[in-house]
């Protein structure tokens, strides 16, 4: 009789602990997910051409920008960059990969900005 009660009690405790753990895990995971969402914006001449959720990218892909020749942007899971450009000093390409919130690359002569929305952590 005692054993049975103990078993019950133990089972109940285990279930509660598991439930709480699952809840905590779920909460933590989903709010982290929302915080980590990196949205890259591509603007040309002040107009937004693309708004890309980098964390949803499954396969890497290249985008050729329609407004200027020679400008290619590469998008991969979690990061984005100018791949090639026809501007003289290629500073935009040299900036490299953008992967954190607040990261930005600019092609001044072609008036194109790529930025990951949000603020840098100082």
């Amino acid at each position, binding site marked *: 009789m005692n054993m049975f009660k103990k078993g019950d009690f133990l089972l109940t405790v285990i279930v509660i602990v598991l439930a709480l753990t699952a809840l905590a895990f779920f909460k933590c995971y989903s709010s982290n997910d929302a915080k980590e969402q990196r949205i890259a914006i591509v603007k040309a001449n*002040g107009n937004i051409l693309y708004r890309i959720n980098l964390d949803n990218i499954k396969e890497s892909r290249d985008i050729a920008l329609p407004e200027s020749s020679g400008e290619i942007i590469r998008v991969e899971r979690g990061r984005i960059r100018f791949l090639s450009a026809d501007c003289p000093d290629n500073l935009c390409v040299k900036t490299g990969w953008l992967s954190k919130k607040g990261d930005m690359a600019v092609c001044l002569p072609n008036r194109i*900005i790529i930025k990951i929305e*949000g603020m840098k952590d100082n």
Partner: protein
Amino acid sequence: MISCYGCDSIKTSNINDFIECEEIGMGTIIKQRVYGKNARTVADEVTEALNSIEKKLSVNLEGSEIDRLNKNAGKSYVTLSEDTCFVLEKSLYYSRLSDGRFNPMVGPLVKAWGINTDKQRVPEQTEIADILKLVDVNDILLDKKSSRCMLAKEGQLLDLGGIVKGYAGDVAAEIYKRKGIESAYINLGGNVVVVGNKPDGTPWEIGIQDPRDVKGSIIGTVNITDQAVVTSGDYERFFEKDNIRYHHIIDPKTGYPADSGLMSVTVIMDASIDADALSTAAFVLGLDKGMKLIEDIKGAEGIFITTDKKIYVTVGLRNIFNQNEKANGYEYVQKR
């Protein structure tokens, strides 16, 4: 031309809602951070105002007032708007104050060097000698009463590039204040203006860029409230040929990029139009004359970084300039 539809709207608490914007304009990147409930509309209004300034004052935009003035050089008078007259008169004032080191008539030199284009080149010495005959500010014939202006000789070109971002910064600050914004920051390619303090009441902390680090690390900071911080440097626009760096700050007396022993000058003042003109003038003048120019002006302070990586500051900044401990080989020197 520039629009603000891509602004990030960041909500923290009611007091600290702010807008962050980057746009391309005036040949550079313009960043705004504006705090307040009406931040988005104000940031848009600033963007529009800057657009309008560029349309009037740009030397490169066809149909701008400056473009019409230049196309009529040696031929006829052109009517200028109030904004343009204001900026022109400030240019003339600083030209005289700096004994010609700041000079809005450098247009033909800028053109010969191909600055701001992809055709940068080293002009022949004979070419420069000829062009130097066209850079006299006394050839700006300005009739203030009628707001009409003419450049005396054909081939002369007015170029307000050394002061127009400074003017734009002040226009932005005026809009922020008029709209009741108490905390705002705008950076036009190195021309920084702030309104008030940050929302937490502490001054804005502005970084001074390391002139030799391509990644843009800083060698120190200054804390400012309601002021402008403008830097002119040899690292902003330059090209290299045969291992020599040719930067964009032309000495109007020699016709060549200023070789004054400085890598950058930062000027801090209430109005960014003044700081902009002075930072250019002080860069051309060099450390000793440049420091003297800044120290003689009430309300102006400066930071000078020499080619041998020494940092000098004017007296008023001695307790305000914070050197970055990790500064890469830079030595702070206390003058006098």
